[in-house]
């Protein structure tokens, strides 16, 4: 049994595997299948200040080796989250990353202030949602936008702050540097890649929102590349994600420079994916006589 623990921004994770924001709700449904305490952490569904209903259905489409979604940040609002979900999650013996997704910087600040008063372990600031008209990806698309919102939220909380980056940018390394400069403690990447599918019989986009975010195996190489570029550009830890569905791919993203991983779409394919990945990482380490998972972080040897 290898040592699977990692430390991100001073927070100790028992293992580096975290279900990604948006696919796991608040854990209740998956608890029917396995104990949440097995997980390194849980990233909760993106929270806004008031309740949001999201976009009209259909909100999902299968794509070659992946899927598109256009949920549009449906959530009950921060107060409901704090009242009914967070207290339950805090009992689960795993690290809780509260994902926030305001449509203005003020809204994000307000949510962060509320979370600052709780026991939540970390805040994951989503500046990369492709499915909302305001905020979301617009924040994360320019260095100035990303820096400005990071700066404001940084002032609002002492909690370790993770900023979640969008792949829909020209240079993720530049965005990462500007976010680091404004005090982010860690980065998580990538959010979904903007995509679209059309039903050729009706000439209508499959998603009612026309466009949506691509995730699943199809985006793995993009994620590996972006984690690597970002790791080369910043000194803060990175949580890597995008298309991970097996332990080998988690190891790959960690070698590219991630200190931990998140698992999204793969959970739809196999609800046990996160726990299988944890076991698989352990097997990989044992097979290769590596005593700690920390020893693989950033060990890629580029040509």
């Amino acid at each position: 049994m290898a040592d699977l623990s990692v430390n991100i921004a001073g927070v100790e994770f028992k293992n580096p595997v975290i279900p990604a924001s948006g696919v796991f709700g608040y854990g209740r449904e998956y608890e029917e299948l396995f104990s949440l305490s097995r997980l390194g952490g849980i990233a909760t569904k993106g929270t806004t200040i008031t309740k949001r209903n999201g976009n009209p259905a259909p909100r999902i489409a299968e794509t070659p080796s992946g899927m598109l979604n256009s949920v549009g940040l449906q959530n009950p609002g921060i107060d409901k989250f704090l009242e009914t979900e967070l207290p339950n999650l805090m009992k689960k013996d795993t690290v809780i990353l509260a994902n926030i997704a305001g449509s203005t910087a003020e809204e994000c600040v307000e949510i962060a202030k509320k979370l600052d008063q709780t026991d939540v372990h970390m805040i994951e600031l989503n500046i990369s949602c492709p499915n909302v008209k305001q905020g979301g990806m617009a924040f994360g698309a320019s260095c100035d936008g990303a820096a400005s919102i990071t700066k404001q939220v940084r002032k609002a909380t002492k909690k370790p702050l993770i900023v979640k980056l969008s792949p829909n940018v020209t240079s993720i390394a530049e965005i990462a540097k500007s976010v680091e400069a404004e005090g982010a403690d860690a980065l998580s990447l990538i959010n979904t890649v903007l995509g679209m599918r059309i039903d050729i019989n009706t000439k209508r986009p499959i998603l009612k929102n026309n466009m949506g975010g691509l995730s699943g195996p199809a985006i793995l190489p993009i994620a590996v590349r972006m984690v690597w570029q970002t790791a080369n550009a910043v000194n803060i830890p990175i949580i890597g994600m995008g298309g991970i569905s097996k332990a080998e791919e988690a190891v790959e993203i960690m070698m590219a420079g991630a200190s931990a991983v998140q698992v999204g779409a793969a959970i739809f394919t196999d609800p046990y994916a996160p726990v299988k990945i944890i076991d698989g990482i352990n097997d990989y380490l044992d097979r290769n006589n590596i005593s700690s998972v920390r020893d693989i972080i950033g060990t890629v040897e580029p040509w």
Partner: protein
Amino acid sequence: MKYTQGKYLVIEKKAIAKDIFSMKINCPEIAENAQPGQFVHVLPTGFTLRRPISICDIDKEKGTIRIVFIVKGEGTKEISALNEGNVIDMLAPLGHGFTINEDFKKVILVGGGIGTPPMLPLAKIYKEKSTVISGFRSADAVILQDDFKNTGAETILCTDDGTMGIKGFVTQPLEEILKSEKIDAVYSCGPMAMLKNIAAVCDKYNTFCEVSLEERMGCGIGACLVCACKTNVNGEEHFAHVCKNGPVFNSKEVVWNG
């Protein structure tokens, strides 16, 4: 709610109409917990997303369930390639099923096309107390009529083109029955347009009505919020989730043009 995920043995597979297959699956823990109206979330090999399919029969003693599905696209085509002796990957039983009430004396089950299969477990419960009205496009799409007859239920068959049974839509015989006798419940599954008309007829005769809805799904268990549908509970609009709050809803709660 109690569901499991695993790979289960297909013990019987039959083609029962054009592009329509019936599969019996050995899955004791799923059969044990399954309720009429619930569904299984099937992973076609090589795909990212699972496909929701209604449970068409539950045999708790033998530990089996049956599904009946039509090949619609790539996913169901892949599932239809499974044969006896293969395993099928299912997350099940999922969702909120039909309300069963032993005191009901007379119920009507209305199935439209590939929405007919989830009516069978209800017919097995209500037996002689039920009338099954099934509607299909044409004679070559007709399924499950013998299964319904074997439960003791009365059956009425309609086809759009009149190639078998009565020519016309299921709402006609439904309204005739509602007009002439007291019906405790109408249960239905089928195309949205049909469900909407059935809900309107039930409203007119003030009859309790439950409908099973469809929406594209991700997780299938209520975590991802992909399968939203608008509902109206006591005058207040909600976004419900077909996979968890449904697929069965009281027809009065459904917002038909949402």
